[in-house]
């Protein structure tokens, strides 16, 4: 455990938070983790440390705040989709997976010049990653609503959300190519020696793609500062991941490429953070890539809100699109019983970082922020039709070809 002590010494606020009660709680968490056998190191060059204990209270509070901001963004968006006939968004919900985005992005550099911050490549389920990286929720809501003041000016919508200023390189509607593209950014970073790290988020479905293997193989061969965060929420689109991967733990794939492959409990933000911090340190030190598999779950179906009710969390029952393999309600309930919001909240209350009143206040503020973001988005101007001819090339517009 010398690595942990060393890290503690490097953290100025470490002494302040190393209370006996937190130590005692850690033991309890470790025991619980072993009991559900979700937390384990599948294959790694040594263990990863429990870095989260060394974070100052304000950083820990920020993690909880971001988790509830994502949660209420998703819930507000689901309600919007269910109740507002004028809402035109096409959304994939991230609720249930919040701890993954927050745990990973909390270990990254998110503020500063573009040449210094860490880069994140996201998926078709991007809103949680975007918020965790620091996107402006209002402008994201406007984009999801196809407004001219949206973060992509209405050109992209949810599956192409991007904000270069925070290193959020973009959502990607395709499964696979984004991962290989992300290794290209890592390649450039290694070549110029800028000490940035590139994270790509992907789902369990990506294992089947050739891109997954191309990303890991090439990043391993070139020792790129690259972290593959595979969010295994059990389903790719509508099929269980056993349709596309012969292993229980996809992280086992890392063994093939001689890189660390780590399985973490994706519902526990501290576990995710610990694994991410280890991977980030390793990448920044020039030691190459890591594959992190976060076991998690989406509370809604693949896209849209079939089976969901206004004001209620989660979607249950039959999704007409999920003919081959739909999710039993018991499975959804079982995962919801290990909720990332509750886990983070309980940990921080047990550590004495938050009390119940403060946690409630943070959550109330997050809810208010989300409601206001969507209300703001509703009032934003629509796009001008002819602007569709812009942004094809750097310069000018292309001709309209649909007109007589």
């Amino acid at each position, binding site marked *: 455990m010398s690595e942990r002590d060393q890290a503690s010494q490097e953290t100025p606020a470490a002494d302040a938070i190393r209370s006996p009660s937190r130590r005692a709680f850690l033991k309890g968490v470790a025991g619980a983790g072993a009991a559900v056998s979700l937390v384990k190191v599948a294959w790694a060059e040594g263990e990863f440390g429990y870095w989260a204990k060394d974070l100052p209270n304000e950083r820990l509070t920020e993690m909880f705040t971001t988790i509830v901001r994502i949660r209420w963004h998703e819930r507000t968006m689901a309600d919007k989709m269910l109740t507002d006939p004028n809402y035109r968004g*096409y959304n994939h919900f991230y609720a249930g997976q919040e701890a993954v985005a927050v745990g990973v992005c909390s270990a990254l550099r998110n503020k500063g010049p573009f040449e210094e911050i860490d880069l994140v490549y996201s998926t078709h389920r991007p809103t949680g990653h975007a918020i965790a990286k620091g996107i402006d929720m209002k402008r994201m809501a406007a984009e999801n609503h196809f407004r001219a003041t949206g973060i992509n000016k209405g050109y992209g919508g949810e599956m192409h959300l991007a904000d270069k200023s925070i290193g959020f390189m973009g959502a990607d509607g395709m499964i696979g190519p984004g991962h290989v593209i992300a290794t290209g950014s890592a390649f450039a970073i290694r070549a110029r020696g800028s000490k940035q790290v590139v994270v790509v988020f992907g789902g369990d479905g990506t294992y089947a793609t050739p891109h997954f293997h191309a990303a890991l193989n090439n990043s391993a061969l070139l020792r790129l500062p690259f972290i593959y965060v595979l969010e295994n929420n059990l389903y790719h689109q509508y099929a269980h991941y056993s349709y596309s991967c012969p292993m229980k733990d996809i992280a086992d794939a890392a063994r093939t490429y001689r890189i660390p492959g780590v399985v973490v409990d994706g519902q526990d933000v501290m576990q995710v953070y610990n694994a991410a911090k280890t991977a980030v340190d390793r990448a920044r030190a020039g030691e190459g890539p890591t594959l992190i598999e976060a076991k998690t779950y989406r509370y809604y179906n693949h896209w849209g809100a079939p089976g969901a009710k206004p004001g209620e969390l989660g979607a249950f029952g039959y999704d007409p699109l999920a003919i081959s393999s739909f999710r039993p309600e018991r499975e959804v309930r079982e995962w919801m019983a290990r909720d990332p919001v509750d886990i983070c909240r309980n940990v921080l209350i047990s550590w004495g970082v938050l009390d119940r009143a403060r946690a409630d206040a943070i959550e109330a503020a997050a809810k208010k922020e989300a409601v206001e973001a969507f209300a703001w988005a509703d009032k934003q101007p629509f796009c*001008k039709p002819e602007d569709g001819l812009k942004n094809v090339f750097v310069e000018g517009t292309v001709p309209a070809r*649909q007109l007589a």
Partner: protein
Amino acid sequence: MARKSWMYSVLEAVQYEMRQDKNMVWIFELTPPVASTPGKPVINLEKEFGRTRVVNTGIDEMWMAACTLGAGLAGSKAVTYIPYQGNCMCFQIIQNHAGKLRHMTGGMAEMPIVYILEMTGQTPGFAGQHSDYEIDTYYAHIPGVKTVVPSTPADAKGMMVSAIRDPNPVVYLYPAGLRELMEEVPDDQYQTPLDKAAVRTTGSDITIVGSGGGMPEVLKATDRLVKEGMKVETIDLRCLKPMDTETLVKSVQKTKRLLTVDQSYYTLCPGAEVIARCAENVDGARFKRVAFPDAPPPAAPEMFLWMRPNADHVVAAAKKLVG
């Protein structure tokens, strides 16, 4: 005879062929081969033929395309259904392998295979990657592969039967926006040729040529123009390769005016090929292309719907050409 959707019509054709040929296989992801229609039994290929012949794969369209090709080379009829988000992931296999193997092997390679490639381009808001319609141009360009794009459930069934029975690789484009279309479709198995355009209305003032997902708007425009007294010959291209030059040229020889309508990008859209063939064969005709601009489809409905050719655009272009 019953009213059937596009997918029901197609799966009815496939079900019949799979019952006749015990070696035939079907490979899919995302979209299960299941369809129902009022008053008819539910078709579920996975259930009926089992998971050895009907396979739900991971998200790997390259594998789906290559597996289909390999099955064909080994002597089995094979069909794969590739959803719209992956319809270019399989391009290499179709363009550089399926399209060339017969030629490269001096006629030895057998490829009784069908690639059902879903295209979208219908739903605003999907944006960029999920709104593309341009694959008609890409796949029609490949030698050695027949590329068709039916626009009605009845054609969808007949052309699927022909595609499965055809010994060549067939790219069978499926404009997903037409999935709501319903019409009377015969229960019996029948074939619709893979090299004939369909003349939907006859007239002598103008020839309007469309295809696939654009046809409903083209037909709407035709109705409006006919009501205003214009004699419109509207042709549903259906087959991009081989293209039915004869029907096209015969029509334009009569009308001397040709308007093509595409949801594909303007540059090299199928209509460009139609115009080129008619220009080579008809003297003194006038031509006009209406197509999606050479820009990726934007998310915002205001932009997307303005850019995608619709009945208003077709009516205006036809009037300009005739007037």
